[in-house]
């Protein structure tokens, strides 16, 4: 790719360098003078703002240039070994531009929010240091030109999520959650590593652009190599984007502060898997089997997570399972080959899910202050203790409603357009492989459940009568403007997000689709997708809207019909509800099937058994004992009886004579 001076584009390095500087400054402050909150917040958010502005400039510059391949900025030769040449280089194309904007934009908003949310926390500086470091790694992931460089970002964000989930490390549960997240991610990374090795041995390159070039010619479409690569890549995505079976870490990740959940476990990191599939679209297009698997697992996760979300009482847990479910939708999108729909849903989801999380953050913040004021020890995140908060937090309530309508897929909001496109794509793909009809169906049911549990969340927290307790009520009040302002911005975005990719029948011209076309063009050769249009399209849309409305209404009425009891004396769940509440006992299953056997095996069998007794005991100490035994035997011979010596003597004589004479 010829490197011309493209105005602002060479400044792309700044978007990563600035947060890195922010991390270094905040990091040293955390160690040296953690109480310098003002400086920390200025540096932390300022750096993000600057990086966002640079990103906008770069993207504007990119819009004017019509470049065929990605624009590469090489900083230095990273790993150089004989034929393997990996550079520390950023590749900027339309897809990474979109991600760049989302990461820096939403990132900036969440930084502003956390200035207010984490104000009293002693680890304030450390928190911002980790957040900045996270942005560095996320940008590395998005901008990396080669798979290993992306992998640096990939595991880097895993590390930051580990640090941030276990931010309040005094609690063993938080530290456990952090460790669990990292290890489950590592299982996913195992897949990415193997995919890299197969790629290297088959087509001798790890550079995304070169992969897109060489794959069609050097690899045979639908062949074993391509399928293996894509399956391993997908294993990485399952680990990172919390799909079945590796989703267990995301609900536990709610142990981290809420801005973390918003930034990492809603908007950016978890979407890395979708980005990876989109980035390597050529390979997935060439491997129909794995694409179908991607869509299948996406659909299954969407439905499965939605069911669990129904009976959760912790506000953040509901949102966590909703994220897992929405990610499932994105994978249905990219699985059916409608990469644009997947990315579009990724963007809109980033907006309204971040808004939902931050909104719940404000609610939890308010509840904390209330309980703090009256020294009550209640779970500030349990919806059963909330209720009727719309009187105290009007702004948060309004914005949360917008987000709920968006996620449910009600027409004017962004969620409707992106989710509808995915379902339409699944329906269209159904024509070729009937199994996609099943995925479409599961997606539809998932949409219904999503609408239901989001409505349930909204009513339990904001509507109905207040259950926090009379004393606490006067302490409940709206979050400070520094927290509500980002909410407003996100509200606007989730409201207007749809215009990014307005479908034809509403007069739009698929702006995002045309923008992302050059990126997904190589995949076109292998899997064409004709979107439904005309009557079928209208029918689908109508159905989706009806589903959304039914879900919402049922959600609201369902929760208001029975009086909700305050958390501390709530009756235990019964029957299937208990199964849902305990998330199908998946965690206990994993613990029983995988974790304890491995630990048990390695303690008893490997360490005590093999290492101590066999290798150490038997061979090492055993041989020592053998020598001692022989010595003892020898001494037994010296009985002191002269007679015995004579006999031994004679036996010797006889032996020698015998051997001589033979």
């Amino acid at each position, binding site marked *: 790719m010829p490197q011309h001076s493209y105005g602002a584009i060479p400044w792309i390095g700044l978007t990563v360098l600035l947060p890195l500087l922010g991390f270094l400054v905040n990091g040293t402050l*955390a*160690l040296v003078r953690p109480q310098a909150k003002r400086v920390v917040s200025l540096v932390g958010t300022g750096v993000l703002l600057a990086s966002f502005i640079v990103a906008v400039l770069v993207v504007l510059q990119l819009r004017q240039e019509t470049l065929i391949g990605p624009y590469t900025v090489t900083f*230095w*030769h*990273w*790993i*150089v*070994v*004989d*034929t*393997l040449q990996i550079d*520390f280089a950023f590749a900027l194309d339309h897809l990474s531009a979109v991600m760049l904007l989302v990461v820096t934009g939403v990132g900036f908003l969440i930084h502003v929010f956390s200035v207010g949310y984490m104000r009293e926390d002693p680890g304030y500086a450390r928190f911002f240091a980790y957040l900045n470091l996270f942005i560095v790694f996320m940008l590395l992931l998005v901008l990396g030109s080669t798979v*290993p460089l992306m*992998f*640096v970002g*990939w*595991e*880097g964000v895993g*590390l930051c999520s*580990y640090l941030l989930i*276990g931010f309040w*490390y*005094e*609690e*063993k549960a938080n*530290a*456990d959650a*952090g*460790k669990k997240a*990292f*290890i489950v991610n*590592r*299982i996913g*990374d*195992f897949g990415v*590593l*193997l995919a*890299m*090795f*197969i790629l*290297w*041995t088959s087509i001798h390159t790890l550079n995304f652009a070169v992969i897109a070039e060489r794959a069609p010619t050097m690899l045979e479409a639908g062949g074993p190599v391509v399928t293996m690569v894509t399956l391993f890549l997908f294993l990485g995505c399952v680990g990172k984007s919390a799909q079945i079976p590796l989703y267990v870490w995301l609900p536990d990740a709610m142990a981290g502060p809420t801005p973390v959940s918003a930034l990492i476990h809603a908007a950016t990191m978890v979407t890395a898997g979708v980005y990876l599939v989109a980035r390597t679209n050529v390979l997935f297009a060439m491997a129909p089997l794995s694409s179908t698997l991607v869509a299948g697992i996406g659909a299954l996760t969407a439905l499965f997570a939605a069911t669990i979300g129904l009976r959760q009482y912790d506000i953040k847990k509901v949102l966590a399972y909703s994220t897992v479910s929405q990610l499932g939708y994105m994978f249905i999108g990219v699985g059916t080959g409608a990469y644009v729909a997947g990315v579009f849903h990724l963007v809109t989801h980033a907006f309204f899910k971040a808004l939902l999380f931050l909104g719940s953050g404000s609610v939890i913040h308010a509840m904390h202050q209330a309980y703090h004021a009256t020294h009550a020890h209640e779970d500030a995140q349990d919806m059963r203790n909330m209720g009727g908060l719309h009187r105290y937090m009007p702004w948060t309530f309004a914005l949360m409603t917008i987000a709920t309508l968006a996620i449910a897929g009600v027409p004017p909001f962004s969620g409707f357009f992106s989710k509808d496109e995915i379902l339409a794509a699944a329906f269209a793909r159904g024509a070729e492989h009937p199994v996609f009809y099943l995925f479409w169906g599961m997606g539809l049911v998932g949409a219904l459940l999503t609408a239901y549990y989001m409505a349930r969340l909204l009513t339990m927290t904001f509507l109905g009568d207040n259950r926090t307790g009379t004393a606490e009520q006067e302490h409940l009040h709206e979050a400070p403007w520094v927290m509500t302002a980002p909410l407003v911005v996100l509200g606007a975005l989730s409201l207007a997000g749809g215009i990014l990719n307005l479908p034809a029948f509403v007069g739009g011209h698929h702006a995002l689709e045309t923008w992302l076309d050059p990126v997904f063009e190589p995949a076109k050769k292998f899997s064409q997708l004709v979107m439904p249009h005309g009557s079928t399209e209208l029918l689908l849309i109508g159905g989706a809207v009806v589903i959304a409305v039914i879900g919402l209404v049922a959600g609201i009425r369902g929760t208001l019909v029975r009086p909700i009891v305050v958390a501390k004396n709530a009756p235990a769940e019964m029957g299937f509800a208990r199964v849902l509440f305990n998330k199908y006992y998946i965690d206990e299953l994993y613990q029983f099937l995988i974790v304890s056997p*491995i*630990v048990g*095996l*390695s*303690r008893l069998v*490997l*360490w005590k058994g*093999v*290492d101590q007794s066999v*290798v*150490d005991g038997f*061979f*090492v100490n055993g041989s020592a004992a053998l020598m001692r035994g022989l010595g003892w035997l020898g001494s037994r011979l010296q009985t002191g009886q002269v007679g015995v010596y004579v006999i031994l003597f004679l036996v010797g004589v006889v032996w020698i004579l015998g051997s001589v004479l033979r």
Partner: protein
Amino acid sequence: MTDFLTSVGYGQWILHALIALPVLGAIVVLFGTTANAKRIGLVVAVLEFILSIGLWWAVDTRPGTMQLVAAIPWIPTWGISYRVGIDGISLFMVLLTTMLLPLCVLSSFTYIAKREKAYYALLLLLTTGVLGVFISLDLFVFYVFWELMLIPMYFLIGIWGGTNRLYAAIKFFVFTMAGSLLMLVAILVMVYRIRVVTGVLSFSYEHLLLNAVKVRSWSPWLFGGFGLAFAIKVPIFPFHTWLPDAHVEAPTAGSVMLASVLLKMGIYGFLRFAIPFFPSVALGPDITALVIGLALIGIIYGALVAMVQPDIKKLVAYSSVSHLGFAMLGVWAGSVQSVQGALMVMIGHGFSTGALFFLIGMLYERRHTREISAYGGIARVVPLFSVILMIASLSSIGLPGLNGFIGEFLILLGSFRNHPVAVGLATTGVIFAAAYLLWALQRLIFNRLDKPENSSLRDLTLREVLVMAPLVIGIVWLGLFPGPVLRKMEPATKRYLELADPGIHPIKLFSFADKSK
């Protein structure tokens, strides 16, 4: 820089200086007073390091052959001469040793209280032994230094060690000695057989390398002798039980030198002697299958057993077994990437495990216990210590962007072509590594600060930060800019691969090997 070095004739005297300086230092330490023993030791160590930095420019590794070769006849009648030389591979081992020495001396200032003079003298002597092994080009001289290295280590563990240090010291000594005696026999038989065939009696490396092919009929046994000695040193799976005991009982500096440098002599021995001498045996189908199998076991077994260790030092020791299993896989996979990956693991492991042992030593100095359960939640009390411990552990589990990843990535990438299944299994080792180290880290610095003694821990002093700084910088630097190091070692690895090709008909030791391949 290079012209300054040539002007001062650096190439001629540096190798001899590197060997002689520690010995002189040891003597001076012994004759000095106990109080300033450690100061002299530090001066000598720093001087040694400064001298050795010049090697980076002086050694021209482009041709890949031995540089700065100097030979002084020692016992002419037996063809033994004191030949030394350095190439791309041994250069980094020497630099690693000389860099760690001052850190070791600095870290034992407050750690060692009794018999300080002997301690620092032995530490310096150990360095001579180690450097000698890495630069000697004469089998006899190599063996002398190999044994010379053993004795100080034995005393370091035996005198300044923990509770049952004698058992550990003796076990370490007997284990290594058994192996090296077999190697001595192999050396002598090889030299003699070659003399019979060629009529020239000489222990020099080039001579033996040239004529090793002439003793083909003996090569399985000779390789066995060499291989066993190096396998014990690496340590490969069945011969590894001395490592945890030696580490647990050794003082901090001792276990750092043991882990970061002494273990690498095993792999260096394979790269320099065992494989180039008898490639047809070493890289034949069955030995390859055997070694890779053992390496795999080492990786996974080491990681799993490390997971359940109550003692943090034993945990890191077993992690070394796992890391060096990767290196062995890299060496035997026989592609440029995998061998360079093995070298990078040798260097990277030196940094990360060295750092871990230093930190554990500092913790031990404060709380006099290595049980993980005795700690908990100390991140709030000692933030700087926890940050450095976190960096060192992340480098050890191979987080991309730090040095651990480079080595392991190259090994796995390079070995995938001809051992795909082995690589698949080895990569799971990466998951277990994350599991055991993070679990230990959590029990150590996170969780609730419930034990009162932990709340009074004081953070790292300036001296301790000075010890850790070079390692942390090295970890980050090697992770982001491995280019210069990789380029410098590439010619040497290419030359090694030329020597180490099994040829058209490799020797099969066990008949079953044919069916399995």
